[in-house]
Each structure stands twice: as structure tokens, then as C-alpha cells.
């Protein structure tokens, strides 16, 4: 993890405080998110997935009001990164569990983009 990523706040917006217990899933780097994913067992992954899916509609509605051009507040960016991790692990729960949590080769992909904002801000 870069020093910059380590300094970023993982504090979520107050209305999503109950998801703060999953703050270890807030990782700015692709590789860190992948390591967290493949390091988790089926039960841990399912607990995160279930909690996130239950609030996913509210998360969408909240993030839909956050315009990227305005720049993100730290708490909104933390929620976005948590939602990104959720999107990235969802196939693990929906399709791989309970036999596994991901394709065995998935960690072999090298991400050459900015892990949150994509190619233009790599």
C-alpha cells in the first residue's frame, strides 16, 4: 500500500455507521482488495456480502448524489471504495461459494489503472 493510501480516512458517512465494522475492506489499491478477498474464507465473505447487499440500494442512492467533478469528501470516497470491494467480491459469493471464493488465477491480473478512478487518473 502506498503511504498516501495508508493515510486516507476510512470513516464512513454517519448513516452507514453500522458498516464501519467492515472497514478492513476499504482498500484503495486493487492488489490490496484482491489480497483481502482471497484471504477471506467463505463465511467471512458471505457476512460482508450480506451486510452490503442489504444496504446496497441506499448506498446507490447516496453515491448517485455525489458528483465526481466536484471532488469527493473523504467519507464519501471511503463509502465508494467499500462499495467497489463489494462489487469485486460479489461473484465470489454468488457463483464460487461454498466451494471457493474466487477463480484460482484471479490474483494473477496486474492492474495498470488507478484502482479507484480508472485509467485517466492512474
Amino acid at each position, binding site marked *: 500500500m502506498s503511504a498516501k493510501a495508508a493515510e486516507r480516512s476510512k470513516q464512513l458517512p454517519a448513516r452507514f455507521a453500522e458498516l464501519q465494522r467492515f472497514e478492513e475492506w476499504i482498500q484503495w489499491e486493487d492488489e490490496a482488495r484482491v489480497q483481502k478477498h482471497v484471504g477471506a474464507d467463505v463465511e467471512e465473505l458471505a457476512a460482508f456480502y450480506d451486510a452490503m*447487499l442489504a444496504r*446496497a*440500494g441506499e*448506498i*446507490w*442512492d447516496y*453515491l*448517485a*448524489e*455525489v*458528483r*465526481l*467533478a466536484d471532488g*469527493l469528501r473523504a467519507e*464519501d470516497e471511503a*463509502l*465508494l471504495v467499500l*462499495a*467497489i470491494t*463489494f*462489487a*469485486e467480491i*460479489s*461473484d465470489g*459469493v*454468488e*457463483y*464460487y461459494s461454498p466451494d471457493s471464493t*474466487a*477463480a*484460482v*488465477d*484471479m490474483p*494473477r*491480473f*496486474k*492492474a*495498470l*489503472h488507478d484502482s*479507484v*478512478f*480508472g*485509467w*485517466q487518473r492512474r
Partner: protein
Amino acid sequence: MATIETSTQAAAKRWASEYPELGSEPIPVEPLVSPRYFELEKERLFKRVWLNVGHLASDCPSPGEYFVKEIEACDASVLVIHGRDGKVRAFHNVCSHRGNRLVYEQRGKAKNYLTCNFHGWTYDLEGRLAGVMDEGGFADLDKPCLGLTPLATDTWKGLIFVNFDPEPAETLASYLGPLIAEFEDRPLERVQRMWHYQVVEDANWKVAMDAQNELYHLPILGPVHAAVADLYTMSEEGYARFTTFKRFGPLHTLWGTAQNPEFEPSGLMALLFAKAPPPKLEMPTRGGIFDYYVLFPNTVLVLLADQVVHYNFWPEAHDRVRWDIFQYVVEPETAAELWYAHYWKAKIRDVVSEDIASHEMVHAGLAQRAKRTFVLQDEEIQIRNFHKAVHSYVDPAEVGA
């Protein structure tokens, strides 16, 4: 599950009857596993055709921006520079003095010049030799002849192509042929590159291309493949079917497939489908939902209504390939739209994650040379076209196949 009106019997003849020139014979294995065949491919194929090396808006959008592409199949490092005059040019990444790599880094931006870090020779952004340190020490230095060695360069639909042939047999437009008209109604400039994954596999580049060149494997290969198969139109028996296959001249091809009208998303996909705003772009698709174009030899453009997936398969050796996977979407305006783009990024990553093992295991199986040929069914016709195109550059008989 939706069905299309083709029984298995009819399906066996569908594309073969439309393209009888592609034949139905088995494909020789040796060209996929032979080091000698790869050496011949390098000289007669990769160094003679137009190769997609970049994307203008992503790799070097403004004057002064440059990037380097290593192309082992051409024994070369290529430097692509967006000149001050607005033109994009590619050069051998080699200093004219002693042959040093001019640029070591992958990409950058120069104000006026690029400088060799061995003896400080400088080149302008159009590739001309601009400055020579201690120039008086050279006898008869012909500076106008000592610019960077250019490669034929052209662009199409924002993609940058080079050709290593000093006198290319045809222009890029002629090489792409009927694909130019095919893409006229595709506003690729409306999408922007968001994601780039790269993976190196122990497989021949054609094995990797083949695996992506059919849908026959879709219900079988892995859990996410099976889930994706449910999105598409299948036969009555549950087999994947192209809704279209088309050749654009002898080299380039398209397969497409349609959406399963009875598909019902679940889980996170259902939530995101319900919440996402209507697509901001509705590119036409020939297949119905998903068009897969092979730009011979090693580029693929996968078109959906509002996103594009772009592959380059770069052979590093006869048994190793570097696979670049780029994804382009309409620029997200809100954090929710960015989240949605990440969802599709992960979906594509997870699908192709399942492909890696099959590429490597198929290569290993073929390299065992237990079989001299492999057989293809009608839904694998794009593979047949692809090998026929490769064989038109290098005759398999040259490696005893």
C-alpha cells in the same frame, strides 16, 4: 431459457454452408507449439502486418506525450510520440548514436525534446535529431539522416497502428478493408478507457485467441462463464449459439450473440440493473447484445451498447503470451456510476480469470503432441477462419504439419 430456431442437426451446417471456403478439415497442432513456426510468424506475419499498439485518447492524447510498447514478436521496443504538429508517429526506440534504448520509462510527457541518457543526444517530438553533445568531435555527421528510425504509423477509430515493413504492402485502410464501413455507426470516441489488466500466460498466442473465439465453452468452463451464458440466447438444448458470424475479407471476423429475453438478474446485478440510469450510449450491435470483432492478427474489440472491451494478445515466445485487457465506458459522472463501472470491470475480470487455466492447459495438452490435429464444430468457425488467416502467412507444411 430463450431458444433460437436451430436444431443441433441444422446448426452443424449453419456457418459451414454459408462459408464453404473455410472447409471442415481438422486444424494442425504443430503451428501452435513449434518454436520454429513462431520464428516464421515473427518474420512473415508480425513484421509485415498492421499491429494495434495503443489508443490515442488514453496513451498519448496531447502533443509531447509518448509511450513505449515492447513487441517481442517484432524483436522491438517501439516509441510512439504525439508530435508538436499534432501527428502521432512511431519509431524504433533506439538512439542513432550507439543504439541505446532512447526511452526507458513506459510513458511520459516531453516539452520539446527526448534525451538519450547515455551521451545526451536529443530528438525533437517529430523524431529529428536535434542536438549532439560535443558535436565537433564527429567527422561528417549527417544529422538530417540520423533521426529516429520511423515505423509506418496510422490511426483508425482512435486506435494507433504500426507496421514494421519499411514499405508496407498496403495501407491501414486497405488492410482493415470492409471493417472501416462496418464501424461507421460505432461512436467509439464516446467511451473512454477506464481499466487495464494485464496477465502473462504460458500459452501460444493462438491458443489464447482461439479460446476467446467461440461460445461453445460458455456453459462449461467455470461458474461465472455459466452465469454469463444465461444472459445470452441459447439453442433448445442449452448450447451457446452465435446469432451472427461474418468475415471482413480473409483476415478479420465478427461473431455476435443476442440477449436471452427471459434472463432475470439476481443478487447485486439485480440491484444495480434496477438502480442504474438508462444507458447514455446505444451503439448498434449486430448480434443483438454482444459483438466480438477479431482484428487480425492479435487485437479484439468487444462491443456492447455502452461499453467496449479491447484485447491485445502479444506473443513473448512460442509458449508465452501477454494479454492486455482494456475496458472503456461512458465517463461516469457520479460516484454511483463509477461503482457500476467497477462492477462490470470485476465481472469481466472474473470471466477471463476462468480462461487463464484453460489457455495454459490447452497449450500444455497440445505441446504433448499426442494429437497432430484438433477438430472444430460449426460454432467454432471463427477459429477456423483465424488459423486459415495465419496459415496464409506461414504454411504449416514448413514445420511438417
